């Protein structure tokens, strides 16, 4: 059953005051609702070097009520495989193992370990929080950064390549559950993590996580930026369960109503696109259109 209103979400908070994340952090909001969906239960979170490390605080204090195991940047998928195997080998039952990595730790340095864990059929949930760059080290380009974005390693020309199609890569592993989510649509995010929790095998959720300091927008616009990404079709909300494809939440509404927002509406509110040219906007619009049409077609076919 889909959650209809925010008041239906569990009231218990698992991230207490004192987090080290930036104000209006898209990851923080993603994590908050994911943890609400994962509890009650026995949860182990494995985290690579990332913004999540910072969010969890500086030893010996943590604001997060969870069993969290920090690991190295490239190791997330393998760490999860090992934790799951260790639990099984020692007869510890009923745990949900969740890997939480950023786009750098997923699209780039962690892709091998992730692919290995998916291919081995590790029974875990992998949540990629995609803030479209190496934000923890100060906004360097990742393969998830959008074309046209200024980063500290694409400082003059902006990023010239389109975002990597990570979903296609994950889908090629034929895992039982894949979903996209956004903290701007918390009920949809919550429901997807709940759904994932009940499925066995590798499950992958990619949450688009707007980053005010990295993208250059005011803190108050966090939700707005996440929404705009969905409304333009740059980030599409869907689920793929055992190969069955379906749009969800706002993207499902857009399927009947059509998209009203353009890429130009999205980029103008973010200083990372301050040097984007008209031609680059056109190309990014084409990228969004192609992606949207592709997913819309899959939605209509149901697979």
């Amino acid at each position, binding site marked *: 059953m889909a959650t209809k209103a925010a008041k239906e979400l569990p009231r218990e908070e698992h991230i207490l005051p004192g987090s080290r994340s930036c104000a209006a952090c898209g990851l923080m909001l993603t994590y908050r609702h994911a943890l609400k969906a994962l509890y009650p239960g*026995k949860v*182990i979170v*494995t985290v690579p070097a990332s913004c999540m*490390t*910072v969010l*969890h*605080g*500086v*030893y*010996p*204090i*943590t604001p*997060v*009520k*969870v*069993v*969290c*195991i*920090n*690991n*190295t940047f*490239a*190791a997330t*998928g*393998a*760490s*999860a*495989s*090992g*934790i799951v*195997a*260790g*639990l*099984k*080998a*020692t007869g*510890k039952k009923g*745990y949900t193992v969740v890997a939480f990595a950023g786009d750098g730790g997923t699209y780039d340095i962690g892709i*091998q*370990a992730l*692919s*290995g864990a998916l*291919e*081995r059929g590790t029974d875990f949930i992998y949540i990629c929080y995609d803030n479209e760059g190496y934000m923890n080290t100060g906004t360097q380009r990742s393969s998830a950064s959008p074309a046209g974005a200024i980063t500290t390693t694409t400082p003059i020309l902006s990023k010239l390549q389109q975002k990597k199609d990570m979903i296609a890569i994950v889908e090629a592993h034929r895992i039982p559950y894949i979903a996209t989510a956004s903290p701007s649509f918390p009920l949809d995010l919550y429901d997807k993590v709940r759904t994932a929790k009940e499925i066995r095998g590798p499950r992958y959720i990619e949450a688009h996580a707007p980053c005010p300091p990295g993208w250059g927008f005011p803190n108050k616009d966090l939700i707005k930026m996440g929404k705009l990404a969905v409304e333009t079709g740059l980030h599409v909300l869907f689920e793929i369960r055992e190969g069955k494809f379906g749009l969800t939440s706002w993207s499902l509404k857009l399927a009947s109503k059509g998209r009203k927002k353009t890429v130009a509406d999205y980029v103008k509110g973010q200083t990372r696109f301050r040097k984007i040219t008209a031609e680059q906007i056109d190309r990014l619009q084409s990228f969004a259109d192609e992606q949207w049409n592709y997913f819309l077609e899959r939605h209509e076919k149901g697979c």
Partner: protein
Amino acid sequence: MSEVKIITANEAAAEAAALCRVQVIAAYPITPQTPVTEELAAMVERGDLKAEYLTVESEHSAMASIVGASQVGARVFTASSANGLLYMHEMLHWAAGSRLPVVLACVNRGVGAPWTILNDQQDSISQRDTGWIQLYCRNNQEVLDTIIQAYRIAEQTLIPVMVCYDGFVLSHTNMPVEVPSQDEVDRFLPPWQGQGLLESGRFVNLNPLILSEPRPDAQGNLMPGYMELRHRLHEDVLASLAVIHHTDEEFQEIFGRSWGGLVWRYRMDDAEHALVSMGSLALEATRAADSLRVQGLRTGVIGVRAYRPFPASALVQALAAVKTVTVFEKDVSYGYAGALATDLKAALFDAGVSVKFSGFVAGLGGRDVAAGQIVQAATDAILNEPRYGWVDVRGSST
């Protein structure tokens, strides 16, 4: 009852891991380690060994996954060689920093580039500063026995242990090995209970970001900073000298075999000259010592079994009465000398032991080192000026 089998060191390593009832194995194939992983995979598939076997996609993931399994309380094992071990390097630091009782069999092989699949010890020596205990074996029996000892050492000290043995020279060479019974091993090695991470029911943030300085926790207790944790690891690795020594003694009580603990001696009682080495090369040095004695040079051998922690006191004691020390080793620290020679010379200097000291690099990339070559180099070092040199570099004056 124990049983004598004619097996390779790789088979001995796999037998040992199984006898230790390892619960999670992860490994990635690399020559000459591969047969260890194949043997264990077959044991698990046959149902002879009740363990989770992870066929990982890299050595980095092999170590990352057994670190994860160890963190939730499983007894874990992996094996690697050469570039595979180097690919693990980050995770070796991580395992030691996490204070996990991980055991790894390192089947020593030369490191590329250029490629060699044959033996030297550059791979494990390159991991010297990762915070692992390193034990070097001289024959297949010692490989089996040392892996069993390694779990006791690791679980007592919460320091990972690397059991090193020479590729092909031991890994692919059949020797009679007394394989102990499961009952005997169970008596020596109780089940590992883990560190209670999950059993405590508490929320934890394991291996988090930490500052250099100590900081109070929520209750106001001052907790260590990064530097204090590093110091603690260093002190504990040093303190493991005693654990390694005692573990070998306790092993002898049950199994009737001792490997000398930290260092072993051959014909040292009246020796004026000492050859010092590690692994199978040290065994070859015993034959050289016999020959040197025939030539009238009273020579003995010190085999370094524990390289990290470095048994400085034991070595100084063993070498206090000799006139010359000549080290032979299958590794080099480019731009200076072999690692063992460097460490040993410093230990002797610290203790005020003045000897004629030479160090030789030998047998890199599988170059055969015959006892006669050790005799030749040692004779030169004993009779002439001490030096750092290389054995059998062809077409060159060394």
